[in-house]
């Protein structure tokens, strides 16, 4: 009896510590806002589902591994005299086939999902909606975000007002070291690189303020380089656009140069935009010395040329 009790000490301490950690985790996560898991848009919503799906799938392997580890460690411990010792059992075609087979099956399923979601959630894929898509050009600066709405004739700094339920088509570049545009509540991040014109399509399915970040280090102001997406109803958004056009200063080359100079600046600002070629100029700034014909492809629909990986 006494030896039995001794043998239980280890597992009991282990389980005790484990449950304390679980409790600590539960306590810590009370009332927290998980942008990735509580999405505000369709893309992020699908990604949340994908997250839950993959967690369930990998649990099929992780849970048996943990269970076997615990049982084998307990049962075949030297101290447990009841455990059978069979040093000749070192190979089994059946067993080994099973544990090649199970992961192959799981990864097979995952591969199908990977192919499907790589296409369905491709950042470049346009979102189909009854609402007309709004184009937004994103410029990552040191250390602020400039958003240009070429068709609406406005621009904004560190704030991204959008109407809800309306597809937003982003063109993303940088006039700074490599940065990355990410609004977790809406989904998918994409790198912002100078001389490049990357694309991203997102949509907000509810109103609210969603925080956005740069996920790639780009100098000392990196942590402060945040922005806020304002998802408003159509009316409020339209009002913001007309108010901005009327009352806010023009953004021209001179003002742009000022913004592009490195500085920490979290202020949310808005500008009237007359020069719709601003974004194209920023992208092309880095393309001047490129060998002829290298990646610089004119796109008729936007009336500008931009390099980029498509």
């Amino acid at each position, binding site marked *: 009896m006494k030896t039995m009790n001794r043998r239980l000490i280890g597992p009991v301490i282990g389980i005790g510590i484990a449950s304390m950690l679980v409790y600590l985790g539960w306590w810590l996560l009370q009332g927290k806002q998980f942008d990735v898991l509580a999405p505000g848009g369709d893309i992020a919503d699908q990604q949340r589902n*994908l997250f839950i799906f993959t967690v369930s799938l990998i649990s099929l392997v992780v849970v048996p591994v943990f269970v076997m580890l615990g049982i084998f460690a307990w049962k075949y411990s030297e101290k447990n005299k009841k455990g059978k010792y069979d040093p000749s059992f070192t190979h089994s075609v059946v067993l080994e086939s099973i544990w090649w087979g199970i992961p192959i099956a799981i*990864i097979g399923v995952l591969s199908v999902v990977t192919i499907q979601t790589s296409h369905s959630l491709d950042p470049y894929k346009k979102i189909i909606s009854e609402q007309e898509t709004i184009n937004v050009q994103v410029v990552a600066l040191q250390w602020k975000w400039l958003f240009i709405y070429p068709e609406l004739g406005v621009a904004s700094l560190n704030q991204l007002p959008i109407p809800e339920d309306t597809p937003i088509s982003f063109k993303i570049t940088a006039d700074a070291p490599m940065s990355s545009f990410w609004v977790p509540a809406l989904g998918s991040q994409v790198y912002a690189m100078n001389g490049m014109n990357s694309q991203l399509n997102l949509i907000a399915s509810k109103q609210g303020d969603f925080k956005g970040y740069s996920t790639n280090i780009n100098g000392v102001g990196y942590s402060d380089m945040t922005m806020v997406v304002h998802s408003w109803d159509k009316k409020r958004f339209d009002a913001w656009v007309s108010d901005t056009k009327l009352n806010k200063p023009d953004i021209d080359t001179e003002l742009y140069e000022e913004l592009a100079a490195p500085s920490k600046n979290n202020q949310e600002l808005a500008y009237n935009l007359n020069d719709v070629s601003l974004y194209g100029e920023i992208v092309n700034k880095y393309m001047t010395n490129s060998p002829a014909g290298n990646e610089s492809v004119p796109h008729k629909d936007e009336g500008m040329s931009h390099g980029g990986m498509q």
Partner: protein
Amino acid sequence: MNVFDFLIGRMSPEYFPSDPATIGAAIGMPLGVLGIAALLTYFKKWKWLWREYITSLDAKKIGVMYIVVALVMLIRGFADTLMIRAQTAIAANGQQGPIDADTFQQVFTAHGTIMIFFVAMGLMFGLINVALPLLIGARDVAFPFLNSVSFWLFAAGMILVNFALIFGGFSAGGWLGYPPLTGLEYSPGPGVDYWLWTLQIAGVGSLLSGINFFVTIIKCRAPGMTLMKMPIFAWSVLVTTVLIMLAFPVLTATLAMLSLDRVFDMHFFTSTGGGNPMLYVNLIWAWGHPEVYILVLPAFGIYSEIVATFARKAIFGYKTMVAALIGIMFLSFIVWQHHFFTMGAGANVNAFFGIMTAIIAIPTGVKIFNWLFTMYRGRILFASPMWWFMAFVVTFTIGGATGVMMSVPALDFQVHNTMFLVAHFHNVIIGGVIFGYFAGITYWFPKIFGFTLHEGLGKASAALWQIGFILAFLPLYALGLMGAVRRIDSYTDPSWQPLFIVSAIGVMVIGAGIFAMVLQIAVSIKNRKKYVVGGDPWNGRTLEWSVPSPAPHYNFAITPIVEHQDQWWYEKEHRQKNKGVLTDIEMPKNSPLGFYIAIAAGLFGFGVIWHLWWLVGLAFVAIIVLVITRTMNDDTTYVITKEVLADEMGVAA
């Protein structure tokens, strides 16, 4: 340009550190070095050090030096961790943290660089040096002098990365230093150059080691040891060396191009000049991803030896273990793009690399099941190496699982470059790599020194690391999902702070684990007489346990003849004697030239960093002259006659 400018390059007093944390380190480190030098002088150990270690070509001694450097660097890298997590625990919601943003970025860059290149790689090469020749029944590595050069290049890189603290500052561009941030435009100072030349010099050392151990395994195995009779550890090293030989030249070339961009204003990676930073990202990960497997595969090998030894059962599914290793070797070269799914490649490209990444989980999973079934129907002795193994299975499985999740590109879009990613790779690198090498150190320690390490403190260290790990990194998974990106030195959302504080507490628990380990080594050395053991303290299976502890410098007096997998176990079971015969053996003489070459290489790097072109020229000439000197020397070996050997063994020749 006047003579003075020519002589001092771009050195100037402004490059001395100005913030208190760095000043403290910049004063403390040289004092520590002076203290050690004083002790060596006081105990009159300089000659001993020179003869027994610095000039030694004995793989075991070189291995010990690797491990000592790696453990010291672990403490340095951990000091960086403390600063990082102290900062994120405090700097919430406008609160000022203990260090400024620039220092913080240098600290995490140094943390990553040091932990990968000087801790993980150092422990890896250390243990390979210590154990591999013994495991395959070899007297030495194929090229003992090259081995010394490799180690000293590693040491030279280590000195450069630490010297940056004292003078010049380090890169603030992250451990893989993406341009344009690390280009001349955004980082004109010497920091990035320190980073570049640290990696360049240590990287060349790694490449040479890779070649050395590949040839050692191919050419120096004991007679009878076919490839399929090699211990799994030897297989894992063989696969790793293939990866090293293929991947490290890519690193060398990539860093060289970035250096050319920086020093000569070339445009490999600057888009204004027609270069392309995305090319850099591809190249660095073409090295970087295999590098992860370079680190982890030898650890897998160590776990395989340890589980078999302590379960008293041969490794389960030997052939599938080997097949899995080879599978991982091939796959590790076709997954690099998963490090930048979000760079805008097309859906099919992303899907391809995503699936290849997920496929790696198959052989890795198979290995885990094989380890578990080695335990099944074994008789497991839970000595401290097994504790590390248990912690490894728990931690690494979680890390592998989150890795599979992130292999799905559409999901990676939401967690890439966040704290989720940080938690994932620490899960695999600490759980897989670091735990494995700690297990290996405990396991082979008696073979090198003739006494074991204190068991209780070893177990305490493993338990503290495991609990500390959970506290330090599980909160980061949650933070990533809340929107916390990696490498931030401050944040505005106050609800993140409790999680960062728990993470900082976890770091301190890990610190206690490191302290337990240091204490373990100190206590064991102090009471070494109590822990003295014979040749086979763990009732081992492989050849290293057939020789006395500490292993003689020639490893095997009689070259073993191998007929079985786990030859030593077989001999013990069947009461068989080694069938080999005593012969004269040839051993390499000591040489200081490896040490000198590395000094010259270090000065070469220092010269480029500070634009001291006269020093670069001199160091370059010195390296060439030293290498030629070595090649002209025909008197590099000596013979131990069989009479001497017989005398040492106490038997008749």
